[in-house]
């Protein structure tokens, strides 16, 4: 028995190792690689796996749960708010209109309205994994098409949750209300309706409360132990526990995981959790896609080749057409609009999840699901070709896509600076940059310090900066500058090595304790070495690297020091009283930030920014015809 389990695992792993890199090599993406691997080892080709497919699917389903947890974790409320119009407008309309259009198409094909609507909703999804990756590779996220695409995909990711809730209502056999998978566990199946409703609310509320207040002390405790595997276990325990709780009350485990993710999105352990469970998500999702691939019924496709081909073409045309109409106002440019619409014309990986869910709940019959699964896979496989078609044939005809780069791009708003180590030095630099409105991601490995800084309202994340995956999660590939202010120079040097190997575009600024430290850094080939006791210009240099004028940066630094000095004296008086201490400190930080905030609308700019400002003079200046009489003749 155990031997056969091991053998099965080996079959899956070997197939993944063989096919995924191959698929990537041919530009097909990892999702298709997994699907292909599944098809090959499945009953259709080699028949290495088969009867235990359902059990594997159960395990693999947990990958989907983790995926939604991570989607929730990624959802920064601030980013959502910034993109609310395109997300709700463009994204919302895309899902609704496409779903309805495709449902109509399905009804024409002779499917009843309930399953047709379910199919429409499922097929409206596009592939986040493939499309975002392509845009990123082509560096197009900043264009109107890129922004539109991002908004639509984000809305779809979120829409999965309500769709999972709606789908059971579309079931053809209302006899099985509790989901098939949950039916065995559902404690409340026989309870009266009001009790079940109450239990649902209580379960979701408890997830929110647990995430908000319960998990942080636990994570802190575990983090303090310094044992990484225990931290990973805690994160998995959290996701698994929430999933189980949701199943018990008859809700979708994915929904619960999503909520837990959103709740933890602002916590200091976000990046650490993300990087720790991401490999599990990857592997389990891979397993999931492989079992989907293995479950494809090739007999059905062979019997209906025209049906499958026709469905692929029709669906992709409908999806393109809908976005061509909706995207017009958003992109304001025909070429960009075509890129947006064609890029999202495939059906995405979420469709597999939803299709799997619908079979379980008896919403769609096996025949439709099988054909739909094949259609989804084929449409994804065509995506690279569609991109190529757009680039080579369609774009040249539509003229220059002279996409006016939008300023202050919300997506690219990954923070430009990473600070590793938030001790005395990193702390000052970090607060200085923050006061100048420079986005910083701060990583620190001291759980207690992170806790204290969080109380001060500073966004600091717990984690070991010298790990590749954590740096990646902290946005190192989009950042411009990394400031290393770790306590030990050995760890700092390790980090330097890591950054050079994996993120060579990052400019490294490093703090040295003393001369011997500085020698080591210089020996390692670093040029931007700052001695803590002598040199305080690191923050100023970081600002200059990000394009701020030198003189402005210099004045900002002096203003900062002056206020920091004042704050120190003020805090010295109240430091015994913890509560007053924190609230005073927080207030001072806010004041300073407003003061230094680089924003013309801000009234508190005075000190740094009002120098040589001629706005008031401009307003006073008479219209062009008469002589201007101001005594001062300044600026411009």
């Amino acid at each position, binding site marked *: 028995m155990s031997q056969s389990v091991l053998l099965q695992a080996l079959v899956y792993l070997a197939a993944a190792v063989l096919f995924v890199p191959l698929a990537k090599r041919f530009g097909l993406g990892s999702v298709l690689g997994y699907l292909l691997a599944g098809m090959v080892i499945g009953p259709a080709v080699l028949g290495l796996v088969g009867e235990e497919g359902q059990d594997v699917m159960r395990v693999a389903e947990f990958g989907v749960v983790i995926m939604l947890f991570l989607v929730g974790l990624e959802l920064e409320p601030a980013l959502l708010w910034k993109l609310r119009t395109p997300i709700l407008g463009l994204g919302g309309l895309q899902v609704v209109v496409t779903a309805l259009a495709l449902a109509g198409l399905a009804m024409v094909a002779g499917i009843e309205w309930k399953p047709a609507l379910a199919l429409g909703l499922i097929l409206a999804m596009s592939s986040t994994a493939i499309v975002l990756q392509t845009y990123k590779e082509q560096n197009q996220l900043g264009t109107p098409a890129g922004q539109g695409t991002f908004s639509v995909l984000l809305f779809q990711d979120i829409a999965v949750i309500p769709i999972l809730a709606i789908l059971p209502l579309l079931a053809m056999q209302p006899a099985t209300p509790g989901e098939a998978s949950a039916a065995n566990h559902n404690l409340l199946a026989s309870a009266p309706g009001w009790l079940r409703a109450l239990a649902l609310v209580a379960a979701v509320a408890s997830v929110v409360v647990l995430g908000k207040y319960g998990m942080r002390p636990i994570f802190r405790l575990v983090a303090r132990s310094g044992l990484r595997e225990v931290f990973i276990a805690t994160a998995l325990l959290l996701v698994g526990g929430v999933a189980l709780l949701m199943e018990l009350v008859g809700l979708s485990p994915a929904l619960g995981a999503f909520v837990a993710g959103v709740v933890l999105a602002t916590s200091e352990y976000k990046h650490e959790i993300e990087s720790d469970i991401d490999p599990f998500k990857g592997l389990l999702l891979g397993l999931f896609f492989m079992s989907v691939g293995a479950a494809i019924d090739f007999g059905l496709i062979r019997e209906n080749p025209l049906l499958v081909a026709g469905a692929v073409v029709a669906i992709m045309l409908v999806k393109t057409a809908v976005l061509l109409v909706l995207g017009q106002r958003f992109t304001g440019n025909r070429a960009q609009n075509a890129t947006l619409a064609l890029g999202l014309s495939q059906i995405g990986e979420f469709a597999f999840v939803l299709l799997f869910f619908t079979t379980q709940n008896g919403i769609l019959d096996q025949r439709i699901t099988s054909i739909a699964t094949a259609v989804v896979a084929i449409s994804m496989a065509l995506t690279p070709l569609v991109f190529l078609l757009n680039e080579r044939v369609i774009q040249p005809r539509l003229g220059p896509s002279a996409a006016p780069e939008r300023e202050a791009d919300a997506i690219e708003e990954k923070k430009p600076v990473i600070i590793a180590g938030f001790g005395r030095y990193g702390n000052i630099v970090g607060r200085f940059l923050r006061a100048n409105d420079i986005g910083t991601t701060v990583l620190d490995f001291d759980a207690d310090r992170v806790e204290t800084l969080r109380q001060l309202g500073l966004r600091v994340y717990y984690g070991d900066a010298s790990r590749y995956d954590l740096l990646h999660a902290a946005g190192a590939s989009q950042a411009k500058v990394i400031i290393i202010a770790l306590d030990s120079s050995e760890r700092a040097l390790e980090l330097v090595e890591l950054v050079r190997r994996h993120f060579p575009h990052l400019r490294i600024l490093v703090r040295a304790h003393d001369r011997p430290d500085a020698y080591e850094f210089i020996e390692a080939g670093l040029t931007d070495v700052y001695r803590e006791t002598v040199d305080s210009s690191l923050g*100023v240099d970081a600002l200059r690297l990000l394009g*701020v*004028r*030198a*003189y*402005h*940066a*210099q004045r900002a630094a002096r203003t900062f020091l002056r206020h920091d000095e004042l704050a120190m004296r003020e805090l010295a008086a109240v430091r015994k009283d913890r509560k007053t201490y924190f609230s005073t400190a927080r207030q001072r930080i806010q004041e300073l930030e407003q003061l230094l905030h680089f924003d013309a609308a801000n009234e508190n700019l005075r000190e740094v920014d009002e*120098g*040589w*400002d*001629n706005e008031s*003079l*401009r307003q006073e*200046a008479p*219209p*062009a015809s008469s*002589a*201007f*009489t*101001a005594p*001062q*003749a*300044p*600026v*411009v």
Partner: protein
Amino acid sequence: MARILIQFAHPALEKSRVNRRLIAAVESLDFVTVNDLYEQYPDFDIDVQREQELLLAHEYVVLHHPFYWYSSPAMIKQWEDLVLEHGWAYGRTGNALAGKHMLNAITTGGRQEAYQETGSNRYTIQQLLAPFEQTARLCKMQYLPPFVVHGSLRITDEEIDAAAIRYRDLLTLLATGQATEYASLQAPFLRSCLS
């Protein structure tokens, strides 16, 4: 071809409309060196040797700055105080700059009519620039008429573009040894200021 050194001083270039475009129009010319003083010395700690070497390597020195309080931003004064040393730039043995040319390139908030004896500023630009002219004289340099963009508070984008092209053309005249043509081109403007 003669080489031109632009000594540029603007303490808040991030807010500038006109000067940013003027500099952009000329910095790519291969006979022009732009020395951005506030960017180079944000702490006013001027590297005297570097500055003197720059002066020696060029035939024309353009002091390019907004016309603050009928004069230059503080940086230009600091530069003069430190770099134009006695015995180097002026005095019995101070001949380093002898024979070179100097001029101001300025932007003013006030309109041209204001800079007349009957206007609100009561003096002409030429009169107000007297300290610079005399500084050049003392350093045995020839002082050329200034390049001026007036009314910068109300200037339109098209006018800025035109001014940038004019600036570029005038510098090209200087570099190709047509200083006289430059002076005569500027003459009508100066006459109007004097009248």
